[in-house]
């Protein structure tokens, strides 16, 4: 094992800050990585992990702060400079080219070539050496990468990292695409690398993995280092969770309104399953009730919502709205039955950005006012305007392109779309993503007042705090299963994370 007191750190990061268009993603990150250690960076979604990685790999330039590499102050001006220093990054999205061979992928961007003609034999031989070093010499270097499994693609990605004179490899949630057997193999490879003195920065949500592979931990939260150089073996899980979530929340959530005991069940999901994604999901939502799905990215929560809506077709199970079954796999049937979805990616899935606001509002219902197929734009505009005034859209101009509005106001457009349509079951996936703090409180109280008026609402958020604050009841989702159902007031962020991490380890 490494000795913390001995030797010079490979990399020191001090006071790193970075902001984008006024939003401060990093507010002061410190990090110290020793040669040959696995240094885990732990933090919730949005804590700033991705920004940190991109800054270390030269994709982003920090606003302030310093890098010390092997004892010398340096800057990382671009990804090539990072590779030059010996920092290689394996991104979460596998960044291999499916149409090229294993060898071509490994040496992509620094091919062995003479006068532009690649030296295929040498490339192939060197690739084979690296793959062998990673314990995967059996994969032919001439095989097309598209034919490999996700796990083997990752090995290729790692081999590419090693094809440079690499001293530090950053791995961004490498286990996300792997099953447990493959994770074991990954760990074996990581240990061999560290035995050679290569340092690894390992990003993961899963505490069990960190316990299995990590040497030291740095916890970041809200773009700041909360604690650094914690020895993995000596830090209790409870402490880590507290560091990750810690803050006392100012009360931005409107008070819950108790759901009437005789309120009708508007949405009833029974035994819903989508093969390979989620299984046996059942829940009811009553008029006036807000049910939250809490879970990590990749837990299956968005897929559950999309399947309920009809955007995906379930392999088994039923969805009923107001007691009547809804045709599986048909968005139109879902909308007709009274459901409305505000999708996760507002811009790419929700809005037609270049069309005026009012047409975005009426997108689900413009046919209603049309006569013989002829649009009634005057009514459309009026209805949209009235609805948007109620939601206090700013600017309250229905003719502006949706693109020009802020995140919070774009979210209001989507709410308005379903309000205009008369939707009784609202599905909200990440309703406050990209919405600034002030506007969030407004969105929260809108959602609460919609519930109070008798709408059944299902809400998903990456921010557990938001799910808990907004919902009456919470379903905890992990690995495609609902592992716990409880009143929102009976559980805290701690408890949810604890359940999720236990569920993920299974």
């Amino acid at each position: 094992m490494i000795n913390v007191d001995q030797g010079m750190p490979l990399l020191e990061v001090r006071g790193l800050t970075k902001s984008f268009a006024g939003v401060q993603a990093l507010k002061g990150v410190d990090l110290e990585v020793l040669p040959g250690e696995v240094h885990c960076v732990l933090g919730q979604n949005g804590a700033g992990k991705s920004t940190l990685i991109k800054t270390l790999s030269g994709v982003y330039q920090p606003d302030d702060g310093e890098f010390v590499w092997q004892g010398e102050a340096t800057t990382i001006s671009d990804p090539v400079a990072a590779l030059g220093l010996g920092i290689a990054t394996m991104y979460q999205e596998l960044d291999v080219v499916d149409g090229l061979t294993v060898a071509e992928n490994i040496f992509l961007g620094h091919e062995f070539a003479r006068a532009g003609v690649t030296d295929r034999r040498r490339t192939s031989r060197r690739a084979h050496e690296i793959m062998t070093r990673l314990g995967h010499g059996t994969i032919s270097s001439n095989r097309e990468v598209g034919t490999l499994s996700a796990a083997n693609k990752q090995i290729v990605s790692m081999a590419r990292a090693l094809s440079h004179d690499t001293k530090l490899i950053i791995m961004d949630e490498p286990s996300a695409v792997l099953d447990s057997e493959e994770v074991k193999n990954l760990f074996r490879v990581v240990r061999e690398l560290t035995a050679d003195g290569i340092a690894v920065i390992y990003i993961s949500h899963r505490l069990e993995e960190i316990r299995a592979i990590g040497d030291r931990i740095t916890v970041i939260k809200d773009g700041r280092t909360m604690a650094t150089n914690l020895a993995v073996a000596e830090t209790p899980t409870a402490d880590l969770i507290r560091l990750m979530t810690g803050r006392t929340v100012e009360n931005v959530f409107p008070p819950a309104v108790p759901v009437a005991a005789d309120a009708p069940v508007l949405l009833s999901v029974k035994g819903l399953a989508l093969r390979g994604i989620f299984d046996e999901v059942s829940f009811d939502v009553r008029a006036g009730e807000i049910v939250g799905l809490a879970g990590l990215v990749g837990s299956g929560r968005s897929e559950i919502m999309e399947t309920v809506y009809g955007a995906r077709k379930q392999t088994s199970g039923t969805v009923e709205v107001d007691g009547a079954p809804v045709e599986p796999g048909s968005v139109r049937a879902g909308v007709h039955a009274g459901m409305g979805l505000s999708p996760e990616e507002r811009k790419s899935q929700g809005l037609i950005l270049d069309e005026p606001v009012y047409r975005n509002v009426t997108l689900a219902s413009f046919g209603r006012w049309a006569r013989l197929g002829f649009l009634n734009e005057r009514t459309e505009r009026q209805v949209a305007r009235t609805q948007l005034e109620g939601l206090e859209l700013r600017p309250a101009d229905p003719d502006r392109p949706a693109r020009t509005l802020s995140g919070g106001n774009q979210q209001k457009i989507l709410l308005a779309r379903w309000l205009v349509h008369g939707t009784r079951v609202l599905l909200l996936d990440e309703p406050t993503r990209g919405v600034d703090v002030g506007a969030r409180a407004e969105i929260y109280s809108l959602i609460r007042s919609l519930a109070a008026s008798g709408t059944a609402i299902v809400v998903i958020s990456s921010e557990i705090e938001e799910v808990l604050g907004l919902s009456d009841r919470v379903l905890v989702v992990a690995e495609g299963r609902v592992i716990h159902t409880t009143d929102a007031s009976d559980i805290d962020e701690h408890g949810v994370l604890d359940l999720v991490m236990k569920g993920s380890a299974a």
Partner: protein
Amino acid sequence: MSEQNSSEAQAALAGEGHVAGGLPPHDEKRSVLNRVLGGSAGRSIGLVIALLALFVVGTITAGDRFANVENVLTIIRFASIIGVVSIGMTFVITAGGIDLSVGSVLGLASVVATLSWVQNFADASNWIVMVIIALAVGAGAGLINGIVIAYGNVVAFIATLAMLVAARGLAEVLANRTTQIVRQQGFLDFFRGDILGVSILIWIFAIVVLAGWFLLNRTTFGRRTVAIGGNLEAARLAGIKVKRHMMYLYVLSGLTAGIAGVMMLARTTAGTSTHGTLYELDAIAAVVVGGTLLVGGRGTIMGTVLGVLIFSTLTNVFTQNNLSTSVQAIAKGVIIVIAVLLQQRFANRASRK
């Protein structure tokens, strides 16, 4: 840089005009200008100017031979067939698709409508039979395109490329590589005639343009088309039947190719498999020059009409001056690039906030 300044100055002027009228507050000045320039009328202004410029050039170089009513009608008649095809193409492109098959579908429709049994049947009943057959062939080919693209998930470029090749081949087989003369007199009498001194072909073009404009701008069909082109996923998640609508769009495009086939029969008095060769490229050029975005989400019928007229006026000016078609082709290429470059400038201005 000076252009930049002058556009700012224009913005200020436009804004002042509105403030004087007591309308939008200060911060909306830019958006008012943007809306005017970004609106369909504004985008067409450049095209109208280009068209007028061509007229000036034509009048200077060819004098009275160019600038007379007869010649103007010739220009429009020349534009009418490609114009009808371009209206259908405008819909497909607005929805983010493409239809490469229109030229050969036009040819196929002209061949099928002039098969001897069809003409015999028309003799025995009515010339309208030939029209119905041509339209059915066009719509049928479009339906096949639509099904393959929407339900077979084949990329539109490939599916319609296949139809381009196959329809041309089928036309050759049916016509046995001959030119089939239209001998049905009723058909010729009607379509080669005129109303109020204006060719029937021009009337058909005008009707298709009007119908296309209404369909795109005033109906639920048009709204769905723009929505799908603007953001297919958002349209789907809002409950619009995206696949079915895509299919309809290719039927529409095939139908306009069928109409163009009838017009071609009228102009040439014969059906042959080579009719409409490369019309797909002329139609796409006219649509894109007109300001419809090739990626979808914005379409303009008026722009397409102006695009078609610009190209046919160009041809006329060149012909009047006895210039070669090769030089004409070069000029066409230059116009396409300049038009798209200008469009992008406008698009950037409209989205800059």
